[in-house]
């Protein structure tokens, strides 16, 4: 079902009241629901306390899309970074949960953070001595914050031990994303960048590769400290882990490439501004799945008279001086007037 109603932005009230309001609007007073909203990056994020409720309302621009699900049908994996754009079918999964009923998740707790900043991935297919780390730069203000250097590492080859040139992490910037994850450390050897092996590449090449992938950087490292490795006991357990492993080809880069394909697409939607219109993200030319508009949603309209675009004819040329920036940035209320310039969004 689809509801649209307004809310006072300045006085959003408490989460409990809002929850009640939702139950009232939908006439489901006794049903436990899970509330989520799409943030400016298109991520589906939960609303379950006062803090994230206020955050959600403050980012309304001016519409706020709220999704509610029955708690028993809820798919928790839908929450997180890039969820909306990464898988176009996330929402349909959310909404058609009973059609595609998956294994019920064991709920430990709700995600406490709004979005992940990093993760260790592909643990099941990598050697234990390696670690594949994904850094989610998108959406965070933190710099990636690390440096790499040339060095040499020892490899086992048919001719015995051999010294080969390698790339290492040389420094972590305090307060940077890399440091805050705790997954990367100085002297870790970089083996792959987004599925591409770095051996045989120069420091500058690897630098360029990392920067080119900075929005969705996945680096495979051999940690200098091997004591914190994930210990797998797939060989003894005989669980699904082993079967997965045996079915996978030994060359991991291909897998990573496939795995990343879908995610990668989302990270680089260029912005196009038409002469008279507002910026939009460049759509895929290929007819993709149905757009978000077709989904059931609640649009929360907040009351503000200053919204609405100026007619393009009144655009002052001076405003076009600044180049446009990311169009989904959190708008600063103090600079509202700049934002609503007809042809170009200025921040």
């Amino acid at each position, binding site marked *: 079902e689809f509801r649209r109603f307004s809310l006072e932005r300045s006085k959003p009230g408490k989460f409990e009241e809002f929850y009640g309001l939702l139950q009232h609007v939908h006439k489901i007073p006794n049903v436990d629901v899970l509330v989520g909203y799409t943030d400016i990056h298109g991520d589906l994020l939960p609303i379950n306390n006062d803090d994230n409720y206020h955050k959600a309302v403050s980012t309304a621009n001016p519409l706020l899309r709220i999704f509610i699900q029955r708690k028993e049908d809820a798919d928790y994996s839908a929450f997180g970074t890039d969820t909306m754009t990464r898988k176009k079918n996330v929402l349909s999964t959310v909404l058609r949960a009973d059609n595609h009923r998956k294994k019920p998740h064991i709920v430990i707790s709700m995600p406490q953070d709004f979005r992940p900043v990093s993760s260790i991935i592909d643990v099941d297919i990598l050697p234990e001595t390696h670690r594949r780390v994904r850094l989610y730069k998108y959406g965070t203000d933190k710099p990636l914050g690390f440096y*790499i250097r*040339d060095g040499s590492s020892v490899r086992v080859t048919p001719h015995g031990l051999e010294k080969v040139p390698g790339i290492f992490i040389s420094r972590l910037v305090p307060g940077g994303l890399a440091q805050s994850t705790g997954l990367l450390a100085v002297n870790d050897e970089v083996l792959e960048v987004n599925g591409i092996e770095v051996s045989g590449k120069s420091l500058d090449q690897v630098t*360029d*590769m990392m920067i080119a992938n900075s929005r969705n950087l996945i680096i495979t490292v051999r940690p200098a400290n091997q004591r914190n490795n994930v210990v797998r006991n797939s060989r003894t357990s005989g669980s699904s882990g082993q079967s997965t492993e045996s079915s996978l080809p030994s060359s991991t880069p291909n897998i990573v490439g496939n795995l990343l394909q879908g995610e990668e697409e989302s990270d*680089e939607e260029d*912005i196009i*501004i*038409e*002469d008279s219109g507002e910026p939009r993200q460049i759509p895929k030319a290929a007819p993709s799945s149905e757009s978000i508009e077709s989904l059931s949603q609640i649009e929360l309209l907040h009351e503000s008279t200053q919204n609405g675009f100026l007619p393009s004819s009144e655009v002052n040329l001076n405003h076009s001086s600044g*180049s446009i920036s990311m169009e989904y940035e959190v708008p600063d209320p103090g600079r509202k007037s700049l934002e609503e310039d007809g042809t170009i969004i200025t921040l």
Partner: protein
Amino acid sequence: QTVEHGFPHQPSALGYSPFLRLMAIGTRSGAIKLYGAPGVEFMGLHEENNTVMQIHFIPDQCQLVTLLDDNSLHLWSLKQHGGASELREEHRFTLKGPPGSPPSATQITAVLPHSSREVLYLGTESGNIFVVELPSFRVLEDRTITSEAVLQRVPEDNCNRRSCELVEALQEHPKNPDQILIGYSRGLIVLWDLQNNKATHHFLGSQQLENLYWQRDGSKFISCHYDGSYTQWPVSSDNRQPEPLENTVPYGPFPCKAISKIYWQTTKNGLPYIIFQGGMPRASYGDRHSISVICGSQQTAFDFTSRVIDFFIIFTSEPTAEFDDPSAMVVLAEEELVVIDLKTAGWPAVHPPYLASLHCSAITCSHHVSNIPLKLWERIISAGSKQNIHYSSMPWPIDGGTNIAPDPPQRDLLLTGHEDGTVRFWDASGVCLHLLYKLSTVRVFLTDADPNDNMNTLGEDEWPPLRKVGTFDPYSDDPRLGIQKIYLCKYSGYLAVAGTAGQVLVMELNDEDAEHVVDHAEADLLQDQEGYRWKGHEKLKTRDGPVRFEAGFQPFVLVQCQPPAVVTSLALHSEWKLVAFGTSHGFGLFDHQQKRLVFVKCTLHPSDQLALEGPLSRVKSLKKSLRQSFRRIRRSRVSSRKRRGGSGNASEVQEANARFDQDTLQEMELAPVQRKIEARSAEDSFTGFVRTLYFADTFLRDSSRHCPSLWAGTNGGTVYAFCLRVPPAERRMDEPVRAEQAKEIQLMHRAPVVGILVLDGRSTPLPEPLEVAHDLSKSPDMQGSHQLLVVSEEQFKVFTLPKVSSKLKLKLTALEGCRVRKVTVANFGSCKTDDYSENDLAVLTNLGDIQIISLPFLKLQIRYPCIRKEDVSGIASCVFTKYGQGFYLISPSEFERFSLSTKWLVEPRCIVDMPEVTSNNHVHNKSGMENAARKS
């Protein structure tokens, strides 16, 4: 890689074979290049990469010997292989003395290939002359002429041991191959009889000897000396110890510099030519690089722009001729080759067909135009020929070998822009890069230097009679004049040239001299934005009133950007009569028909202060130079430690080395070369820098109507598209051209946009302006939907038009870690059939690789390593042609040409035939050069 054009970098030796009529040039990097008739070129490289000190052709052979600075001798020969001649190294040899002898004992100072072609005489620092057999380089020890043997046969009263140290010159008697003239450094000259092993004559010079030269009949010879004098000596059978005939100091009486080489050439009319290098008065002209030619009362000191490496004289090669009759003098200076016609009165220079000094003023940019229409070609040549009237009409005297390469299939022009504000037009069709025409933009502007200042004004009675020759002039009067971008429309003859101080000139080809006013406009790219202050150079001042222009390209419009930053992109549309230009601040469009500025667009990001502060180069180079100086400090610290470690005894050395290793290790730990990994943000510098401009007639607004459009790409990954309204031809002067911004695309990866291209309905790139009108291209397909290709340094992306939906992409950097430096559409034809050709992208990356990427599917076809990745200037200078060839600078003075297409190959293919050797040939010493031993 096919052929090198231009002048060899750092030449170090010169040789000439009058028999083959080939010239050889050796360089400091160990390259050896042979040149004959235009198109006849050979190249060889010594493995050692050591400096080539001397080059000597073996008389009457297709062979030559080179001496390197490591004292090794190398024998090269020209052999026919597969229908063409090739230069190959045959043998190498290093002269070894008896064990325990000092290295100077075998240090070769003079080389004499004997006319018997069987032996080489090698003069050494020790004074001994070694004889080696050819081609095996076997030392014939029994024939060595030791300095002791010479001393025994010379009366002892006026000689001592030291007079036989260091052989400075070795010369074979021109009529009697059994006699050689040996000149020792201290002044003693001995005529040695090889048969009887004795000195027939000896000559006592009082001055330190530099060189020797025989007169043609062998009755006299001439010696030149360190004090700037030369001496003639008679050789007669009755006097075993003759006195000098004549001793002259040509530029005395004040102390003079050494005369390092001398020629004595006889002529029919009796007046001999004396030609010598150096000898200038030490105090006032000691810094000149001169060669003087004296013939009777005529005397000229040719004043070269750079150090003279060596020279030779071309004279009659007829062995039976009675006189030398010199025809030309060929001088190899450090930066250029100059040939003087000695037969024509006034001794004019000869215009060389190759070995042009590309760098006579530093090259700042280049532009290539393929397939020039004959009409334009002829007009450029005729404009150029008017500039070359002071050259001699003599045919090129070095004409050995036969060029068997097929004629170039089309006429290609390479335009180079130079620091001094000139544009040079080179014929790049074939193997010889030949200067056609030189255009100067200086006249439009007021500069400190007066262009009417004639360098060649010389009073009649001035002494020494210096005359400047050569074109090398690296000193620019005003760096703002430098040319940065060139665009030539080959159909209309319109030329747009843009420079360092934001100047854009539009020119037209005119076959006559003309005097006219250049229309002048200013383009304020900041559009009155507040708070910006330009700290760079001022704009150029223009000359008021009409200016006289010589025949050729004459400017009629000047647009000056404000602030006067370097023009970073330029596009000309000759059909619409529009020129677009961009700097680090924005871009503008100018209507050169109505002479009206259509619009300007500021691309500056408000936070980008760097772009405002001044010339880009300065900011960047300051950063760079700081970094470099830190590195240098570090390196020098390391090396000084190394040196300290080298002194002292063995154990100390070891200890020091160990300490040093540890230190360097520590140092490496402290300051490793590291790179920061950070996403590009909108606040990066120079985001507004306009990298590329492109005109296209395409579907910008809707899919039913196409219209002219202008596209601009910036360093920050933004693409702007403007819709243009160009009035039809009949109302072109009456209605203004209008422009309206239609689209703006921000690439999320924010890498600099280096290329924009529109593909038509058949996925073929849109033709150049006027190409269709001249029936040289199919008209573009306007039925099917057009596509837009945006090339950034990191990615290739194809968008649909007019909706701009992303269709395809190739993420080059993410996959390979390389970045796009240059990109062009190249047409690749099949070498088998004429009817197949395809368009692909030729891409040069920052690693110096060249990649071919297919259109429109963006598939990587092939990759070649081409330029070393450290060679930043080589990569920056690279220019692709429309048919899959390219050029890049391998040194400031040389272009390397390469070809990616099997159909278009320009490479030297030539044949050198052994001329008939007549039986009496070896009796005569025909070649001065072969035997001219040079001081090493």
